[in-house]
């Protein structure tokens, strides 16, 4: 790198000051800086700073409160203009902006109605999806509600697919990933922003958090959600994996209560990616049935034209078995419920 380039890359004084706001224990300084922005009438800059701060110092109730008040003020100030815009020159972007403002003012049904109207008006415009995602993301951050987090992820993914490189979509997605303690994934998402504007508050929050949170060892967002919810991550070790005697046409994997691979049949595929996917499936099933009010998971059957996967819940874990011959589904099921049971009690 040349001297001029390295000089250009050096953070300027105001950038350094901004970086200091994200140092450990700098919550009150960041809050003061946001207040100063607000006093100067730079409310959007203040909100952006506080949003990044609430991620950097999460959980930070004072920051959440200040951000809530600021966003409400912004929403109140813009509401009349947005309503007028929707009435005069209706567009998906206007409807989405009105939706966001209503959501901030507590009118959830109105907000959802306008967001859906925005999506209906132009399904390829990311703004409607983003408006819905923002509401869910706020709920996830404030209430630590997994359903809100999953919904935020769905809508953000959709919005990012529709407009790759959309700044607000990327910032929101990075925010979600950082809340899930996934700095590597967040860094990837923020790369286009960090190149263009290295002093963006969300980029600075990410940089500060990266020094404190170890890089995640998975790129599976569902795994990140499960880790976030349970506070534990499964450790799959080939050394501790026992062998399950099984007919050659069946592959069997047993996952324990921590979703780690405990045993598998001799012919079962033990690639790390497959083990992780089975582990995520076990965790998602357990989480889903209880959260949907269906009680504990008993069994799962996944049928495709070329195979059948059956999972049976037992002793806190799940035993999965697969055959690539759909005609053997009944044999597989019988083996799992009887022979496999005898093997276990051996």
């Amino acid at each position: 790198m040349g001297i001029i380039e390295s000089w250009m890359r050096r953070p300027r004084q105001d950038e350094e000051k901004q970086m200091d706001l994200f140092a450990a224990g700098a919550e009150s300084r960041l809050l003061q800086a946001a207040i100063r922005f607000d006093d100067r009438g730079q409310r959007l800059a203040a909100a952006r700073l506080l949003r990044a701060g609430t991620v950097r110092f999460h959980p930070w109730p004072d920051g959440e409160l200040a951000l809530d008040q600021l966003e409400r003020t912004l929403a109140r100030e813009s509401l009349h203009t947005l309503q007028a815009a929707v009435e005069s020159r209706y567009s998906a972007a206007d409807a989405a902006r009105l939706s966001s403002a209503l959501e901030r003012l507590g009118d959830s049904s109105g907000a959802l109605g306008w967001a859906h109207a925005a999506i209906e008006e132009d399904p390829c415009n990311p703004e409607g999806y983003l408006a819905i995602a923002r509401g869910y993301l706020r709920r996830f951050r404030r209430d630590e509600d997994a359903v809100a987090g999953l919904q935020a992820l769905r809508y953000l993914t959709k919005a990012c697919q529709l407009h790759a490189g959309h700044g607000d979509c990327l910032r929101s997605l990075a925010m979600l990933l950082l809340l899930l303690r996934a700095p590597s994934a967040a860094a990837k998402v923020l790369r286009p922003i960090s190149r263009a504007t290295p002093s963006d508050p969300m980029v600075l929050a990410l940089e500060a958090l990266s020094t404190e949170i170890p890089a995640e060892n998975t790129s599976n967002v569902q795994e990140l959600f499960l880790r976030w919810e349970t506070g534990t991550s499964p450790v799959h070790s080939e050394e501790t994996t026992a062998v399950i005697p099984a007919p050659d046409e069946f592959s069997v994997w047993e996952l324990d209560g921590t979703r780690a691979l405990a045993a598998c049949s001799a012919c079962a595929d033990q690639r790390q990616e497959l083990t992780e996917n089975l582990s995520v499936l076990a965790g998602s099933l357990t989480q889903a049935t209880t959260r949907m009010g269906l009680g504990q998971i008993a069994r799962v059957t996944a049928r495709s034209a070329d195979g059948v996967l059956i999972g049976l819940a037992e002793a806190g874990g799940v035993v999965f078995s697969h055959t690539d011959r759909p005609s053997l589904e009944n044999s597989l099921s019988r083996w799992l419920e009887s022979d496999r049971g005898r093997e276990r009690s051996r």
Partner: protein
Amino acid sequence: MKRLLEQLNTTPGVMGSMVMTDDGIPVVSLLGTEMDEECVAAFSSTVRLAANRTAAQLDNQHPDEVIIEAEQGNLLLINLDGALLAVMTHAGLELNTGLLEIRSVARRLREILTIRTP
């Protein structure tokens, strides 16, 4: 689509149903008041994604149907080629006979979606 779901919901044992996009975004929902639409959409989509990823590695394709049996009810996820039909049923539902009706509705929903997608 709504009419088909209404018809499906009259099947004995069926508690509610919904159609969502592949991304997990609800399209039509007839779940009944006691069920949380957001929750069903979020977790159906999560389970479907996890099952898809696993099956893609085992069978090189996504499953046509995923049937989840739990203590107090079942959740059936049927692939609609670009969308997903989620059906919640009582635990006692006879899955073999109930599935026939559900598959038949899924077939008709798939036709509607095929017509709508140029």
